[in-house]
């Protein structure tokens, strides 16, 4: 006899920029189910850039709130609760909604047909928080790459997550999952002050993608990685070593989005061809 599906709820955290003007920015999601005894929260991290959210003046409020929220979830206790509430219940989150009256607020519990909460919370977060408000820089590189690829090729590549190390999702700029391989298209700005940090993060991400389902990165499934980078005004100067590092450690082809647009498109076409057609069935 099939078991009844679990009923899930979610809510959206918002950071209030201007209370009087009712201006706020979505900064996280909570997902829970009483039947499944499952609850999780995904709030924006200090390493993630969001448009209209300052790392120095806004993130500390999210950080301190997250500590308190985790304590409340762990202890099953909420301030001013007259009876015991459990964080997998809608009533817990309704109570929290009344409690949050300052910088961080939360919406009312909302229905959602969630089937696999572990893998769905990140896309939910990305949809509500991430994709709607990619940082200006990420959006700019994404736009430049799309321009290189052209409309049709851009549509062939999806945005979102693919499975990485330990089967955990990794958010990539664009990807194509063929029958033989997965093509990952990423972007990075090597002209910025923190280019080394960004390059390291990108290499780490690509290694995690390659390590899908295995303990050792070298055992990973077939991934073709292409990186579009933005260089300094007159081309790569002191940052050429970062491009080399991405190619070597990330096992990727790195191309300048402004100076090598044709090569970027051709390499992407070639990679999609090599990845083979889409698998016949690729349902959830």
């Amino acid at each position: 006899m099939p078991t009844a599906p679990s009923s899930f709820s979610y809510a959206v955290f918002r950071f209030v920029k201007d209370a009087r003007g009712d201006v706020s920015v979505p900064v996280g999601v909570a997902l829970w189910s009483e039947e499944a005894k499952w609850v999780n929260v995904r709030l924006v991290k200090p390493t993630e850039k969001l448009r209209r959210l300052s790392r120095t003046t806004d993130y500390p409020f999210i950080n301190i709130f997250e500590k308190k929220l985790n304590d409340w979830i762990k202890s099953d206790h909420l301030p001013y609760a007259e009876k015991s509430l459990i964080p997998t219940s809608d009533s817990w989150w309704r109570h929290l909604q009344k409690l949050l009256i300052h910088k961080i607020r939360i919406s009312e519990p909302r229905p959602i047909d969630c089937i696999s909460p572990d893998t769905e919370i990140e896309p939910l977060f990305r949809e509500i928080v991430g994709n709607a408000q990619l940082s200006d820089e990420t959006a700019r590189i994404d736009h430049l790459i799309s321009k290189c690829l052209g409309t049709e090729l851009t549509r062939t590549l999806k945005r979102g997550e693919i499975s990485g190390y330990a089967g955990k999702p990794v958010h990539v700029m664009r990807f194509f999952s063929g029958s033989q391989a997965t093509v990952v298209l990423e972007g990075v700005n090597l002209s910025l002050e923190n280019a080394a940090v960004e390059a390291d993060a990108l290499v780490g991400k690509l290694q995690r993608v390659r390590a899908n389902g295995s303990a050792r990165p070298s055992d990973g499934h077939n991934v073709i990685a292409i990186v579009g980078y933005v260089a300094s005004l007159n081309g790569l100067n002191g940052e050429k070593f970062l491009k080399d590092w991405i190619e070597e450690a990330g096992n990727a082809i790195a191309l300048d989005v402004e100076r090598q647009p044709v090569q970027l498109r051709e390499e992407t076409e070639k990679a999609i061809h090599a990845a083979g057609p889409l698998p016949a069935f690729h349902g959830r």
Partner: protein
Amino acid sequence: MLPTVFAYRDDGPQAEMTRWKPRRVFCTLEADHRDAPGTLYVVKFASGQAGAAALISETVSTRLFALAGCGTLTPAIVRASEGFAASFNRKSDYPGPISHGDYYGTLHRDDVEAGPPPGYDDLAQPLELLRLWVLDSWLCNIDREIEGNILLTLATKGRFHLIAADQSDCFCGASVFCSSGFRNAMKNRGPAPSVSFLPYVIFKHGGPNVIRKTAAEVRGILPRLPEILGLIPESWWQRSGLTPKIVYEALVARANRLEDILNPSQWEVPNADSAILL
């Protein structure tokens, strides 16, 4: 004198779950509201005898906290006209009717988050916590550790300053404050509750000496007490059944015993000079 502002329009509940259910209210500087919409305040329309005691507690204690160097919200007397009270009673979801007259409000701040702070590392100046505790112990505040009674405002490097945000339950709580048991309660009450890591703050910042020093500084504001009690509207004294004299005597008596109440010697560490704080 505290500034008087005039309630113009209700903007909804601020903290529905607390006892006095404060409201966000736009208040003007002029009684005829020609400067509408004015400024947003958080107002406690506390009514009845205990309500008046809570308003006295807020006004006196907030001023004392400010004089002692603690962060506080900016207070004002909020005057509700007959028209505002009638409209409020008809339309708002507030649990009880309010009458026209004077109430306590503070300027609304949208740059804060509710405390208490989760840990020591979140504090910009940990001694602010100790100072709150010393004052709370003097004033017999019963609920500082409750969510929202401290507010957090950003300092630098992701750390926060503390704001003493709710003083309605000093004097052993509003219900005791306006009761016949007030004097005895003030005499017998021990140190105030605080957050779980207060002992760490005390040990890390000087142990008993820092308590003694802070207590002495707090006692230094005693001469200002008559002036502070003069801030209270006469109608609040009448409604509460309290007098400035009763409050003055209770506070002076407790200030004189503050060191006994705080018992700094319990924080003495044998051979502290050679000890290493882990």
